[in-house]
C-alpha cells in the first residue's frame, strides 16, 4: 500500500504540474482547467460504482467472504467522488454560465440522481442489523444502481427535450494532443487516488473487525 500511496502522490503532482504549466489555455478561458479535475473525478466515481456493483454481483453469485465489505467501501468512495463531482461541476457552472446549478448539464443531473440513490444505499445499510441478510440486500440494491446509471442517462437526455433544449454541454471539447495527455494523466491520478483510499478504508475496517474479535476472545 505504501507503493500505491507513492504512485498516487506522483500522479497527482504530475497532473497538477501538467494542468497549470503544460496544457495551453483554451478558448474558453482559465475556467477550462477545472475540467481536468471535474471529468476525471466523475469518471472515477462511475468506476467506483461499477466496482461496487461487480463486488455485489460476486457476493450474490459465489459468496466470497470479503465481497460485501469491498462493495460497501467501493460505493462509499463512489459517493465521495460523486459529491466532489457535484461540487466541482457546480463551481464550473458558476464560472461559465453564472448559475450554481444548471439542469441542462446532463452529467451533473445524472450525478444528482445517483447521489440520491446511493445515499439511500447507506440509509438502507444502517437500518438493517449486520448479518448475511444485510449483505444480500445491499448487494441487490448496488446492482440496481449499476443498472440505473445507463437508464437514468437515457432518461435525462430524453427529459431535456421537453424541459428545455440542450444548450450547454460540459463534455470534453475536441482536445489538442497536449490537452488530451494532460487529461489522461489527471484521470490516472484520480483513479489511483480512489483505489488508494479504497484500500486504505478497507484496511481500517478489517482492523476494526479483527480487534472486535480479539476483544471477544479475551473478555
Amino acid at each position, binding site marked *: 500500500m505504501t507503493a500505491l500511496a507513492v504512485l498516487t502522490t506522483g500522479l497527482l503532482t504530475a497532473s497538477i504540474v501538467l494542468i497549470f504549466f503544460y496544457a495551453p489555455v483554451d478558448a474558453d478561458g482559465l475556467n477550462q482547467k477545472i475540467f481536468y479535475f471535474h471529468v476525471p473525478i466523475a469518471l472515477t466515481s462511475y468506476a467506483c460504482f461499477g466496482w461496487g456493483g461487480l463486488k455485489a454481483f460476486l457476493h450474490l453469485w459465489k459468496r466470497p467472504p470479503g465481497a460485501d465489505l469491498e462493495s460497501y467501501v467501493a460505493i462509499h468512495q463512489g459517493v465521495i467522488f460523486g459529491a466532489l463531482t457535484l461540487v466541482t461541476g457546480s463551481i464550473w457552472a458558476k464560472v461559465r454560465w453564472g448559475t450554481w446549478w444548471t439542469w441542462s448539464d446532463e452529467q451533473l443531473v445524472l450525478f444528482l*440522481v445517483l447521489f440520491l440513490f446511493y445515499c439511500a444505499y447507506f440509509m438502507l445499510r444502517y437500518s438493517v442489523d449486520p448479518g448475511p441478510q444485510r449483505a444480500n440486500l445491499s448487494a441487490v440494491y448496488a446492482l440496481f444502481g449499476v443498472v440505473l446509471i445507463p437508464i437514468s442517462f437515457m432518461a435525462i437526455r*430524453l427529459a431535456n427535450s421537453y424541459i428545455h433544449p440542450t444548450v450547454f454541454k460540459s463534455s470534453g471539447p475536441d482536445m489538442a494532443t497536449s490537452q488530451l495527455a494532460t487529461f489522461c494523466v489527471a484521470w490516472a491520478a484520480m483513479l489511483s487516488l480512489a483505489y488508494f483510499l479504497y484500500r486504505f478504508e478497507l484496511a481500517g475496517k478489517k482492523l476494526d473487525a479483527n480487534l472486535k474479535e480479539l476483544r471477544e476472545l479475551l473478555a
Partner: protein
Amino acid sequence: MRRYAADVAVLARKDLTLELRARDTLPAMLLFVVSTLVVFHFALPRHSSDLAAKGLLWVAIVFTALVGLTRAFVAEREQRLIDGLLLAPCDRSAIWLAKSIAVLAFLGVAEIVALPAYAVFFSGIGWSTIAAVCLADLGIVAVGTLLAAVAAVSRTRELILPLLFLPLAIPVVIGGVGASVVGSPARYLGFLCLYDAVFAIISWASFEYVVTE
C-alpha cells in the same frame, strides 16, 4: 412452467382476496389520489399551463403507488407469513410476481378513478397519456414490489421505502411526462418499455436474494 404459473395465480389470488375482505389498502389509495389532485389544484397558481398539471398527474401516480407499496408486505411481516411462504415449494420469484400482480391491480383501480378525476379537475387526457400510464405502472410495480420486500426487512420499514424508490422512479416520471406532453410520444413510450423490461428482469432475478439469508 405451468407449475410456476399456477403458483403465481394462487399467491396473487390470496393477496386479492385478502384485500377484498379487509378493504384497507385500496380505499386509502383512492382517497389519497383524489385528495392529492385537489391539493395540486391549489398548488398551481393562475396562468399555470396545462403542461404543469400534466406533470403533477405523474407525481400523484408515483406517490399513490408508494402508498400501495408500503402496505404490500405488511401482512407478511407482521404475521410472519413470510416464513410460511418461503417454506412453500415454489420458486421464490413467484412470490414477487404474484405480489406485483396484486399491487398492479390496486394501482390500476386507483388510476381508473384518478384519470377521470384529473380530466374533470384539470384537462383532458389523450391516448398517449393512457398508454404511458399503463407502461409506467408495470415498471413502478416491478421495482416497487422488490423494494417493498427490502424495506420490510429493515428496521425503519415504511420510512425507507420512499427513499429507495424515488431515485428509481425518476426515469419513469420522465418517460411518462414526456409521453403526455410531447407531440410524438413514441420515444418516451419506447423508453418506458425498455425500463419495464430491464427492471422487471432484474427484480425477478434478485427477489430470491432479498428474502433469503
